[in-house]
Structure formats: C-alpha cells, structure tokens
C-alpha cells in the first residue's frame, strides 16, 4: 500500500487521502460511510487457500445428488446439473439457462478468475491479462447466486417433507460448506492488493 494515496468514494465521489492505512483496518468514507479500503491480514494466503477449498467443494457439490425423495417404492434424486436438464427437457430452456448461469457457470468462473489472479501474485508475478480477468470477475460477481440457491434448497425441503421422505445428498453438505467458503472469500479477497501488486 503506497502512502499518501488519493481515493475517491465510489458512492459519493468525495476525495480522501489515505495515509498509512493500518493492516487489518477498514477505511470508511467520511461523508456517506461507504467502505473505501478494507485490508485483511494475510489476504493473499487466506483467499488463495479459500479459493482452492471452494473449487474442491464446487466439484463435490456438482458431482453428487443434492436431494432425493422417496415415496413408497418411488425414488428420485436430483443433481444441480440434472435439475437444469429437466427444465431444458420440459421446454423451459430460458429458465434452465438462467439457473445454469447463476448457480453453476458464474460461481465457477468467479472461483477460477480468483485462482488465476492469486497464484501468480503469490509467486510475485504479474498475472497475464490481469485487467481483463479482474473486470470479468467484477462483472460476474453480482450474478453468482449460490447463496440464494441454498435458500431455495431449504424452502424446497420444507415444502417436500410434508408430502414424502426427503433424503439429503452428499452434495448438500458440500453446498452448505461452499456457501460459507464463498462468503469468506468475498471478505478476504482484496482487489486493491491485486491491482497494486499486479501493476509492477
């Protein structure tokens, strides 16, 4: 972090001179209260470790069934991708696409972008095409909705248990862990660090 750096608040445009931002501290806009900078201790190591964890959990969350139902002799399990395929097969491909993008592809790309940025930074190198990857990451970020999907799973379970036996799948546990890991990545990943280290 260079000292005496100028920053404009992204919410109200007020200029701030940030002198020696303390490690682990947060700088807040004096006029509108927006968070200007939030440096975390060991941001690089922690977010790299969490991103790798996230990718492993992502594979697990997609490889096994999320939920299964049992009613009499009938049994049916649903994976994440399988649910999208059911919508596609029923002719609701637009909804299927929306679910595929927001619950599978964008969260995956988000994790891969962060891994791509963090590994070279960890080795003190400048990531190739950093600007493009950072901007892709920032654009996709609001569209990754795995946490909303988790709430969707909970609502579905409560709806279904009244009618039939609901069996939680392996993926469900991976999914729950993944939500926590994604929230932690969002808290520890520091884009300013990436910009500053990636510059030189």
């Amino acid at each position: 972090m260079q000292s005496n750096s100028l920053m404009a608040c992204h919410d109200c445009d007020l200029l701030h001179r940030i002198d020696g931002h303390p490690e682990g501290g947060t700088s807040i806009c004096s006029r509108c209260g927006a968070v200007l900078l939030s440096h975390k201790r060991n941001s690089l190591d922690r977010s790299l470790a969490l991103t790798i964890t996230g990718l492993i959990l992502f594979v697990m969350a997609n490889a096994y069934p999320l939920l299964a139902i049992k009613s009499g002799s009938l049994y049916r399990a649903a994976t994440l991708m399988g649910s999208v395929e059911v919508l596609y097969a029923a002719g609701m491909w637009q909804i299927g696409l929306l679910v595929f993008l927001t619950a599978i592809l964008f969260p995956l790309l988000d994790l891969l972008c962060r891994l791509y940025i963090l590994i070279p930074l960890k080795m003190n190198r400048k990531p190739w095409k950093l600007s493009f990857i950072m901007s892709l990451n920032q654009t996709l970020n609001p569209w990754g909705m795995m946490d909303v999907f988790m709430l969707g799973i909970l609502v579905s379970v409560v709806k279904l248990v009244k009618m039939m036996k609901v069996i939680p799948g392996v993926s469900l546990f991976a999914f729950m862990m993944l939500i926590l890991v994604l929230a932690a990545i969002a808290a520890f990943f520091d884009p300013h660090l990436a910009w500053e280290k990636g510059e030189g």
Partner: protein
Amino acid sequence: MNPPLTARNVSMVPCHRCHLISQIPSDGKLSGMACPRCGAALHQRKPDSLNRTWALVIAAIVFYIPAMVLPISVTTTFAGAQSDTIMSGVIYFIHSGSWHIALVIFVASVLVPILKILILIFLLISVQVKSKWRPLDSTRLYRIIELIGKWSMVDIYVITLMAALIKLGGLASFDAGPAALYFGTMVVFTMFAAMSFDPRLIWDCMEENHDSG
C-alpha cells in the same frame, strides 16, 4: 461555504474498475480516455445513468405484471392439473400452516421486487428534481437494493428443484409455468437497473445547491 472536495470538483476521475485516480487533461475532454493502470474507459459518472435506469425500471414493471398474474407452477396428479400463481402459492402455504415458507416466498418474490422498483423510482425522481433531502439515507437505500436484489431469485430455484424431484411416473409431476420466465426476466432487469444507477448523482445534487447559495 466551499463545495465539497470531490474528484469531479478538482478535475480528477476515479477508474470504475481499479479505483485509480487520474487527472483530467486541461481541455476537459474525457471521451476516449482510458485508465493508465487497467485500461478501462474513464467516466466521471456512469454513462447515461438516469435514462438507462428508467428504461430498465419500466421494463421490470411491465414484466412484473404477467409474473404475478400467470401461473408460476403446474402440479399434475392423478386427480388433475393445478396451476398456482405466486400469490396463490403464498396463500396455500398460509392455510396449510407453513407460514414460514409463505413468508419467505412473499418477501422474496412479491415484496423485494416492489421495494426495489419503488426505491429506484424514488431515487431517480429525487435526482431529477435535484432534491437535497437526506442524501445519506438515499445512499443507504441504494445500498439496500443492491444487496437484496438477487434474493428474489429464490422462487425460481425452488421451482427448479421441485420440477427435478417431483417426476413420480404417472402419479405426480411438477412443472414450471409461464410466469417463471417473466419473473426471472423481471429480476434480471431490476438487477441491471440497480447497477446502472449512479449513487454519486445523489450527492451531485447537494453541490448544485452550494453553487446557487
């Protein structure tokens, strides 16, 4: 009273992507300028923010109507097919005692989109009439809609899972209804609308007040 020291008032422009501050050249021309660090096009404010936000808000309102009126799900059992709208689903869950499900669906699918649309209209109008009323609270309202927007999608995910699971041979099946598409599109529109609104416009109104006073 002096105008507040904003980037715009001292001819500087922050990059929307990497937040690096650049000096605007003395001729004041910003068009075609790119951030020296990350190469993003520089803008003092989000381009055409008010028009784009209005267009997306109006599109969201148009899509909200069929999303509420048409059936969002169709349940087929041996007793016949039953269509449910979002509200009839909420009412069904109140009657069947699952008030917590009813609450989640009502808040996420009905209340949040309406609140988002109303807050955006309020913010757009207050910027257009150059209102200087409680800018801090307006900025907070903006942050709230940015935060809650995506949670409206929960109903789409519930329908996806129910449709995937309830395919019990000829006994029962569950399918997404036509409203699902309108609803999903409406949520996407409100998210784009929130992204295209620039909260700095709220604070610009305060400065125009300083100039005249």
